[in-house]
């Protein structure tokens, strides 16, 4: 009893400092949210506080002004395309590196590790010229291929680290029953690894949804642009209409916020797995 009392008293200054930093993290996002449901006329008097009158009409307005039906679809295509392609190649490689250990697989692992550290600026210009030659500029498939390659090393290592812990006996038993390697992968390794596949998919999807540099460079046609670069041009186009701008930004945040609420642990563990060693 005494101990817990002491602890509780000690915790109060902790909470005080932590709340200050939590407010620093959350309040700016809250201001954005308030602004997205605030009438434009109220901005002069009340730029930071909660709105006196909720105006949800900002969202349809922004949706129409930015032609978001098209843009949302563009982003969704990029996200799903990249998640599927990247997971397909990464789960195959992750399985091989975890359980098959081909001779010389260390070379592949080192190549992918170096690949993670290469700054995008080294290859972005030759890649751009290559994509121009192949007529892949301003196409979604071109960007999907790039996003899959960018995220593949991370996804491969994440999936490998999970599959390596699957018991070998399962695979040996299947082998004895006459299953070939591809059947073992599709029938045993893949279904058993669904948690890590889901985590990797969420992280890839988030990275693609938020990505800016490659979207800016490889898609210049406004009809094909995703949410991120459209929001960037939206900010310039409606420079002083903060209601419209904020509504557009919230539309980009909302799917992330909803998924984060549902899968907090997966997002946090997946995003920080690169920084944590086994």
């Amino acid at each position, binding site marked *: 009893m005494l101990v817990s009392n002491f602890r509780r008293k000690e915790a109060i200054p902790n909470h005080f400092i932590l709340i200050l*930093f*939590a407010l620093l993290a959350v309040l700016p996002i809250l201001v954005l949210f308030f602004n997205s449901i605030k009438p434009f006329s109220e901005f002069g008097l009340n730029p930071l506080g909660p709105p006196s009158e909720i105006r949800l009409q900002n969202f349809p307005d922004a949706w129409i002004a930015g032609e978001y039906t098209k843009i949302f679809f563009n982003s969704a295509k990029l996200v799903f395309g990249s998640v599927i392609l990247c997971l397909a190649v990464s789960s195959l490689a992750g399985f091989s590196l975890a359980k098959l250990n081909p001779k010389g697989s260390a070379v592949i692992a080192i190549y992918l590790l170096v690949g993670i550290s290469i700054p995008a600026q080294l290859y972005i210009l030759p890649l751009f010229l290559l994509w121009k030659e192949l007529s892949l500029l301003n196409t979604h498939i071109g960007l999907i291929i790039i996003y899959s390659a960018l995220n593949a090393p991370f996804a491969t290592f994440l999936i490998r680290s999970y599959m390596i812990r699957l018991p070998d006996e399962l695979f040996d038993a299947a082998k004895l029953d006459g299953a070939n390697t591809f059947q073992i992968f599709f029938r045993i390794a893949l279904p058993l690894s669904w948690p890590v596949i889901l985590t990797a998919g969420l992280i890839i999807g988030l990275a693609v949804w938020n990505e800016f540099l490659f979207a800016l460079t490889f898609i210049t046609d406004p009809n094909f642009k995703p949410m991120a670069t459209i929001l960037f041009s939206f900010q310039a186009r409606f420079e002083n209409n903060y209601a419209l701008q904020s509504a557009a930004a919230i539309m980009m945040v909302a799917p*992330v916020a909803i998924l984060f609420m549902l899968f907090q642990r997966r997002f946090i563990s997946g995003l920080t797995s690169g920084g944590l060693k086994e």
Partner: protein
Amino acid sequence: MNFLSNKSYIAWYFVIPVVFIHLFVIGIPSILSLALCLTDWSGLGKINYVGFENFIELFDDRYFKKAIFHNILWTIIFLTVPVCIALMCAYLLTGIKRGQMFYRLAFFFPYMLASVVNCQIWKYLFHPIHGLGGFFESIGIEALASSPFTTKETSLYAAAFVDGWHFWGFLVVIYLTGMYQVDNHLYEAADIEGASKFQKFRYITLPMIRPIFIFSLMIIIIWSVPVFDYVYILTGGGPAYSSEVVANYLYTHAFVRFNVGYASAVGTLMFIYVIFIVGIFGLLRKLGWEI
């Protein structure tokens, strides 16, 4: 694992797709870039070999030197401010029971948001009329009365602030994971000895999380090299090159002026630097540092 040792070529089929797509997008263009940095190509026409001329020109270019200096400043800022705040918050979080998850989510959420969104939020908050400009003026911080993104003296720090605001929650989570692995008996022993909170942090927590801590420093140094989004969106490198960073400098040469050779030379230097840093940390690990 030996259930496939007789047919090991099948194992290779599984890695071919990832190697192929990665070589196609990253490997081959990187090698091209390493080759093109010795030419004066403009993207069209003949490719002339010019030796190390691009590099000689680069080291004479005062805007490039300025950009490098800004990247170094950026690295130093990120190695200190977010690291200290994150260490403190993670340590304080281990001392509380209630609300743990709430704080963790609150700190981490900005890390999930797109750079465009974060930049929009802070552009608005630092707006001299709509944002906090008036508030800063009334409490006597004149420097923030006008937008810090458009002032020469502050533009770089303001962009770094927004990026740091987005990033530090990530550090809290990885430090926290490390701190939970520390054996509780150590703290209990320290309590008996009458150690203060800070002493426990300094002599137990920090040494025990050293591997994660050193690793976080390495990724901060590496991630400070390609910094682009926040500078490009918030300041565009301006005003008057006051927030120019290497990645933005390269972007201008690559996609505005189409100096392929020159931009490749910048990219090559960035690559060499990153490999050098990774090499140093690898060497330290080999020498028996526990990192």
